[in-house]
């Protein structure tokens, strides 16, 4: 394998200690709603300036990979994705936890995250230069269609009505427009309110729409938050490994999807995990019930979102284009350390880059024991904490977490109001996932849409701009397939059943 000689450099006791600390810190931070991977990396960046370059990069990579995994804890135990990339983990993780299998769900998530992280890191090591060209093939209109594809997936995957999912996605896109328009600077949809001027912060909205409805229902009923089984059942590692082995195609496919989507700047783990989840559901074996506590759903989501870590570093290192916000922070630290990103990076500064990638692989492997231990502790805490302490503790974390993102009380108020709104519409079948994804993808979609619109107008070829480019056509076909296939399949099944009855 390329750069194998640098493995020993990464294996120094100091680097191992940094990797271990980074994974633990990242996992704990990622598990707290509101504390994102970006924030955890950004806070620790100044500490790395005085370190040797390779150690600094290993520490940041370890924090990042740990934080992405940590997001699964709150997704599984609280139905609140700790990071946006864990949205799809809630679909099956929370139902599994409700059934009393939260420990099993966390172990599955840990194993899948390790597999995804390893596939992404190996792709970074071996295929970075050719794969980075994928990012360059995507123009504004392709990003617009990619965002719409992501929304179509979540609309189709949401429980209940597809039309409600589409409406939720459109509402999310509109909510993302609130505040000062990035393209032209108009103040939009604030209706004179200072609170709305800075727009709706994505992570605050995510916390509100996912966590507040859980709290509202939690406080209304006596009894435990999750089903509690008596007796210790350990990590349930054997059970999880057996399931994962039976579902290995799902794990590998999701990791590959996560790596490829991670390469696209801005797309990130949320789209990767949704595409993987959709594929896992589409290829489900008989008896697998996705959306009701199927471990395969957690495998798809977690394998994909951890693979985006390695995938996201590909354009960051080869092109100098950060794939995700944490990549942007790490890119800044790289520049401070004197590393010059670009196509010749692997040849000119191979020692630093390969040591960093080996460090990322080591951190991913270290995530297995640390993730299992922390996950077990988190699960036991959640199930044993009395409701009279659990509710205020979670509520308090949602408030401080939302505030800390921009040091803004308005974000907390919007979070609570959106949460109450989410709870009301949730009772009528409008789920939070499409709204949140609309909010996440809104800026990407709008930027791509307006740029394509302007170029199309200037070249007097708007239709061709939106519908005439090969990659756009492929994404549009996938989008239509996602939206229409449930109806077509249901119709075909009905015809088949009728034929059998006759």
């Amino acid at each position, binding site marked *: 394998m390329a750069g194998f000689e640098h493995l020993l450099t990464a294996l120094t006791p100091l680097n191992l200690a940094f990797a271990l600390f980074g994974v633990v810190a990242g996992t704990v931070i990622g598990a707290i709603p509101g504390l994102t991977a970006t924030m955890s990396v950004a806070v620790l960046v100044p500490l790395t300036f005085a370190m040797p370059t390779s150690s600094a990069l290993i520490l940041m990579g370890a924090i990042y990979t740990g934080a992405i995994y940590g997001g699964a804890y709150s997704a599984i135990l609280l139905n609140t994705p700790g990071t946006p990339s864990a949205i799809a983990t809630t679909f099956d993780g929370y139902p599994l936890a409700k059934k009393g299998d939260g420990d099993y769900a966390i172990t599955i998530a840990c194993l899948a995250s390790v597999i995804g992280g390893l596939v992404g890191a190996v792709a970074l090591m071996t295929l970075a230069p050719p794969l980075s060209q994928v990012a360059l093939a995507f123009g504004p209109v392709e990003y617009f269609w990619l965002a719409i594809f992501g929304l179509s997936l979540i609309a189709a995957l949401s429980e*209940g009505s597809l039309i409600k999912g589409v409406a939720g996605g459109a*509402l999310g896109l509109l909510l993302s*427009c609130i505040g000062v328009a990035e393209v*032209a600077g108009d103040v939009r949809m604030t209706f004179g309110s200072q609170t709305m001027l800075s727009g709706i912060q994505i992570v605050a909205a995510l916390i509100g729409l996912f966590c507040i409805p859980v709290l509202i229902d939690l406080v209304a*009923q006596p009894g435990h938050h999750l089903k509690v089984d008596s007796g210790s059942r350990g990590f349930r590692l054997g059970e999880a490994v057996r399931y994962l082995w039976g579902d290995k195609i799902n794990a590998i496919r999701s990791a590959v999807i996560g790596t490829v989507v991670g390469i696209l700047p801005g797309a990130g783990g949320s789209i990767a995990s949704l595409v993987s989840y959709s594929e896992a559901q589409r290829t489900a074996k008989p008896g697998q019930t996705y959306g009701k506590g199927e471990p395969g759903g957690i495998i798809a989501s977690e394998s994909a979102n951890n693979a985006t870590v390695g995938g996201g570093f590909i354009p960051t290192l080869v092109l100098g284009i950060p794939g995700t916000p944490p990549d942007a922070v790490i890119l800044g630290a790289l520049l401070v350390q004197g590393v010059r990103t670009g196509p010749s990076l692997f040849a000119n500064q191979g020692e630093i880059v390969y040591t960093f990638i080996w460090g990322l692989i080591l951190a991913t492997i270290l995530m297995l024991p640390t993730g299992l231990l922390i996950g077990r502790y988190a699960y036991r805490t959640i199930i044993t904490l*009395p409701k009279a302490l659990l509710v205020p503790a979670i509520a308090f974390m949602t408030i401080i977490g939302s505030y800390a993102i921009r040091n803004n009380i308005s974000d907390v108020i919007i979070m609570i109001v959106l949460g109450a709104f989410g709870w009301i519409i949730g009772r009528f079948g409008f789920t939070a996932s499409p709204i949140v994804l609309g909010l996440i993808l809104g800026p990407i979609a709008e930027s791509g849409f307006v740029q394509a619109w302007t170029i199309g107008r200037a070249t007097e070829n708007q239709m061709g701009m939106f519908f005439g480019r090969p990659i756009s056509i492929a994404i549009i076909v996938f989008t239509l397939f996602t939206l229409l296939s449930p109806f077509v399949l249901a119709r075909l099944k009905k015809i088949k059943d009728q034929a059998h009855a006759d």
Partner: protein
Amino acid sequence: MQTDDRKDTGGAVISAVMIGIACLVIWDSMSYTDPDSAVFPRTFAGVLIAASLAYIGMWLFGRAKAGAAQEGGASVRRFLLVAVMLGGTMAMPVVGFIGAALPVFAALTLIAMYDPWTRFRVLVYPLIGTAIVLGFFYLFREVLLVPLPTGSLFEG
């Protein structure tokens, strides 16, 4: 979510509210100085109106079925939870982070309490609550360097 034969009137009402929101967006977009700011919200307000109208149409033709009935529970506690969280947040700039967080924590403990108050709980729960609030205060203020509100009441 299992469906039953009830017509989804609630879903249709929410769809009507969505149409109202979309109309508000289109009305607001009339005031933008640059057409580039308006094209995206108008397009997706149109999508929202189309999807909501489609759902209302389905409801009118009896094809929109309600989901499984939601669990009941104490509505007063639900309302109090949201009210206390909102009130505490709004009070934070005035009374400071700790001045708002401790009463909010205590109030939410009372709202979420279903078990009888024993002497142990009366002693231990406030201690745990205080430890959580102060622990997070230290973590965010001193470690993560987040400037938590100090409160205008206490500023010289």
